[in-house]
């Protein structure tokens, strides 16, 4: 009985493996970028503040609210830069926000897209004060060439990875 069970499980696992691989290969083969997903529950806990600054890798949009410059790190979050002395701008920290491409600030609050959700983030307390779910379409790929909109609400598209 146990052997049979093991046999079935192994069979199923191999099957899944084969299916996933072939699906990935055939489905995304010709795509320049491959989507990366995150579970909805993880997305809702994904926005946080890191006081250790990060290196800039792929800077995107820029926003200024004296004395801070905010620069988007595409699909990852926002660099917080103290620009009190423009000759010596200081990277102060990083707002982690998967799927982020845009931001705007009013008072102490930054509005940013956390993939398909809009998040209000308190820049003083460094915490999320509001999340409005499912207001935006999935973030588009870096070269704007691929749109993805499957209404699977368990897994949310948050980024794109270059297809090698």
């Amino acid at each position, binding site marked *: 009985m146990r052997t049979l069970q093991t046999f079935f499980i192994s069979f199923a696992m191999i099957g899944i493996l084969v299916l996933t691989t072939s699906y990935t290969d055939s489905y995304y083969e010709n795509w320049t970028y491959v989507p990366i997903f995150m579970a909805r529950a993880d997305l809702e806990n994904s926005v946080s503040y890191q006081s250790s600054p990060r290196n800039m890798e792929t800077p995107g949009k820029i*926003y200024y609210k004296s004395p801070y410059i905010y620069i988007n790190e595409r699909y990852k979050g926002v660099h917080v830069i103290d620009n009190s002395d*423009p000759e010596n701008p200081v990277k102060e920290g990083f707002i982690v926000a998967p799927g982020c491409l845009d931001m*705007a600030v*009013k*008072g*102490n*609050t930054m509005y940013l897209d956390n993939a398909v959700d809009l998040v209000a983030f308190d820049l003083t307390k460094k915490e999320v004060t509001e999340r409005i779910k499912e207001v935006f379409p999935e973030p588009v790929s870096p070269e704007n060439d691929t749109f993805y909109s499957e209404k699977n609400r368990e897994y949310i598209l948050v980024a794109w990875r270059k297809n090698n």
Partner: protein
Amino acid sequence: MKTIYKLILIAVYIPVWIACAEGGDTYSNGDSVGRGGSMARFTIHDNYLYTVDNSTLKIFDVSNPAQPEYLQRKDQALNFGIETIFNKDTLLFIGSQDGMYIYSVVRPEFPEKLSRVSHIRSCDPVVASGNYAYVTLNSQNTGCGGWSNVLNIYDISDLQNPELKVTEEMNYPKGLGIDGNKLFVCDAILGIKVYDVSNPVEPQWIDDLARIPEADEVVSPYDVIPVNGLLLTSTGEGLYQFDYTGENLRFVSKITTLKKQDDE
């Protein structure tokens, strides 16, 4: 009586003017609002956050900044391929892949379409100043499928009938910004082009990054924010700042990118 009036006006205007001059921020309801670049898809006007995505203009009430409220019933359908939104006074300029829209937000919850000028399919951020709107069209962006790389200048003195006045050839333009008589355009290879637009129908190319060794590596500029003499620039190579108060751009500082090893 008149003097009191004047005094009140001065008392009100001077702090606002100083605040604007210092930070380049605008104020609404006591909360200051920052400034985005031309590639932005979020903009805040008054107590409202406006966002554009592929095909919709959305409005969020942010009178209580910490608790934005989505006004779903105010959604406005737009043509597919919306790229950018730019706010000037009570106007919203929306750049899409097939044209430029001008909306009035005199009644902030009810944006009213004043006009739409169409052009060949391409990607286009837009900024506006005085009676002119400045748009870059970029076709190499594969999703857009157009064939044109230009800077277009529209006379918008009649908001209902913008008139195309100038078309200037570009390499591969992206974001742009304007302050007074200076227009800054991100364009591949040369980095950033500075135009004198004292006469907007005859823009004069007066400067670029060619003379600035500290910005030698800049080949993919993305967006700019000119704010009180300081040009904040986001590029594929990092964050660069230049002083534009003088005749030529002067390098101020940079934070360069560090590419991950496994990226290439």
